[in-house]
């Protein structure tokens, strides 16, 4: 009986002893609130301190929350102490992380690739005939066709280059206009020709991975940057889709747009053919042409 009483009193005794030793108090606090610290490998600043590929999804999620979303981490740890199963904790982590992101992560497995970017770039060769029922195929191909472009993978370089320069000229001519429909049209062209400067707008996911770019990291700065990129991409693409709708509904606008594309394309094509007067044996490259020299060819009707 006495032994049982001793056993029952043991936790209180241990707690009292711990409260008298600052080191034990500290370790106890870590076990309570930050147990990931106890399993964390000793970091060496000369090497990476966390290997995302070597850990399981839950550990990765806890690590990211510990670094970037401490409130979510604190809640997840308390759930662990309450005996919640892995699925519940995983769901809690995902919800907590997604509350801080513009584009949500679909599963804990995706966390290894950094904060998600919603790539919405347009790649013409990626348009397949079986996409005919897709909105994009129906709406965007006629715009590309005005520039002489199609989903054919073997488009000659000079056709692509001329179209690219013509699009730059038209965007320049549109940015001086104050009407919202022309801002939308400029955004449509920068989207279609991948010249917005926004990574999410200018790249498809495949193109981004194929280029071998580094992905963003789970750090406060990178998360803020990716959120800003995704937010801006959503605004840009929404604006571009407004332009698609305007071109579809406003026939005079479509005619003006078609005419401007044709006239600017011709002017640019002539310049390409003429060659570079400063270097008689070299041809122009698209980057060497100043769009400002061609703006006068584009004429836009007034709009509300």
């Amino acid at each position: 009986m006495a032994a049982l009483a001793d056993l029952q009193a043991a936790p209180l005794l241990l707690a009292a002893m711990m409260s008298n030793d600052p080191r034990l108090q500290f370790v106890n606090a870590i076990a309570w609130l930050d147990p990931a610290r106890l399993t964390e490998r000793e970091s060496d600043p000369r090497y990476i301190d966390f290997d995302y590929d070597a850990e399981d999804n839950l550990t990765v999620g806890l690590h990211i929350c510990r670094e970037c979303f401490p409130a979510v981490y604190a809640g997840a740890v308390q759930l662990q102490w309450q005996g919640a199963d892995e699925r519940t904790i995983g769901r809690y982590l995902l919800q907590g992380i997604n509350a801080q992101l513009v584009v949500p992560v679909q599963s804990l497995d995706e966390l290894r690739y950094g904060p998600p970017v919603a790539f919405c770039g347009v790649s013409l060769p990626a348009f397949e005939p079986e996409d005919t029922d897709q909105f994009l195929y129906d709406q965007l191909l006629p715009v590309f066709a005005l520039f002489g472009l199609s989903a054919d993978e073997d488009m000659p370089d000079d056709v692509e280059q001329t179209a690219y320069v013509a699009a730059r000229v038209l965007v320049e001519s549109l940015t001086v206009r104050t009407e919202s429909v022309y801002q939308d049209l400029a955004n449509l062209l920068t989207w279609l020709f991948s010249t917005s400067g926004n990574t999410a707008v200018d790249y498809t996911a495949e193109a981004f991975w194929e280029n071998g770019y580094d992905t963003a990291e789970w750090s406060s700065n990178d998360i803020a940057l990716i959120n800003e990129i995704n937010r801006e991409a959503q605004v840009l693409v929404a604006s571009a889709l407004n332009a698609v709708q305007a071109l579809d509904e406003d026939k005079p606008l479509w005619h003006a747009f078609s005419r401007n594309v044709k006239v600017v394309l011709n002017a640019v094509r002539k310049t390409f053919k003429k060659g570079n007067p400063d270097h008689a044996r070299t041809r122009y490259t698209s980057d060497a042409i100043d769009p400002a020299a061609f703006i006068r060819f584009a004429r836009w009707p007034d709009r509300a």
Partner: protein
Amino acid sequence: MFTSLDSSGLVDCLSHVPPVELLAVRLLNERRLTSAGGWFPAVLPESVTDATQELIAYTKSCAALLNKLIYPSPVVLPTLEIPEWPL
């Protein structure tokens, strides 16, 4: 004036430094006796978050200091001449 410090002197000096006052430790000491059941106390989520953030920041600063001691930056000695090793 400070002239030197050996390892036992350093240990003696550090042992006199009072423990850092952390919210997590305070919560553990204050609430454990009043909380029914469980080894750790039941505390409001806001307090848990604050205590966790403070604890993480503290352990990170300790780890950073430790790394500084383990991997000290090289010291440049411009006045030291080693004539045996001219380029």
